């Protein structure tokens, strides 16, 4: 699951995750989407760029 807050600064970033994921899937530029969502600091941005969703991978082993 996507982290609720930025590890470094503490900004609540999870609320922007679904919008980000949707817009990336629509082919928009990552940097432009992050700027638009108000994720301006690089501490928060790296979490978006580096996140891997694991729920679907783990679900069959419950």
């Amino acid at each position: 699951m996507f982290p609720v807050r930025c590890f470094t600064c503490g900004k609540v970033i999870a609320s922007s995750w679904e919008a980000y994921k949707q817009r990336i899937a629509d082919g928009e530029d990552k940097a432009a989407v992050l700027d638009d969502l108000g994720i301006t600091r690089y501490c928060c941005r790296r979490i978006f760029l580096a996140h891997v969703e694991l729920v679907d991978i783990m679900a069959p082993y419950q």
Partner: protein
Amino acid sequence: MEIDVLELSDRSAKFILSNTTAAFANGLRRAMLADVPTLAIDDVNVYNNTSVLYDEQLALRLGLIPLVTSFDDFVPQDECTCEDGCPACVISLTLSVEATADEGRMVYSGDIVSSDPKVQPAEMNIPIIELKVNQKVVLEGVAHMGYGRDHAKWQAGVACGYKNLPIITIDGCDRCGACVNVCPRNILCLGDKFVEVSDESRLNCSLCGLCQDACEIDAISVTENESSFIFTMESDGSYTVNELIINAVNTIKRKASSMGDILSTL
């Protein structure tokens, strides 16, 4: 001390604090980060959890969700006059979501049901956990007031920081343009007779000093005004930025007066 507000919204602010000391600016910054109490889920009673996350991970995620707090209505449990929990120090929130047999479902912070209508998650669309088919989560979160110094979930101020006000002086410029090219933030521009700095972009200067190095005749100098600070801050949503600053200043005031009391008894 003067305050000159540059930007102000519910969630973020930028202002110039002038005629003060670095000690006061830092005190304000620290108070906003660590000493303004907010509400956050602290204890979690898990009734059932068949999701992919462990109970502990789920509890951490719930704790980090900012809750809208009214400063006057709640007190940290240690400072409360009651023995073991009263409506002023303990707020119960419940989360009970079950995915159907046909399709999964995302649980959002908006699914949390609060026992006190004044206490709500600051943002309703924070994903907590994705439930697959037939999975369910039933739990009760108990929220307490706490301080940012104890855990990041109680930290109301986000990314509070300041820098000194830059002073850029240009004297005897020959309009060679070397400093304009080297400035990483494009603060300088070529005027009619010499290089100019616009008042607005001056605040954007990072005091890197590249322009000083680039100038061969030492016509430009960048120094900092040590009694003025450009302050930037954000709130996590538990308070508006306005409330946060006022609460932070009140906290400093209260600490200072209790310090005075202690000193006067010596």
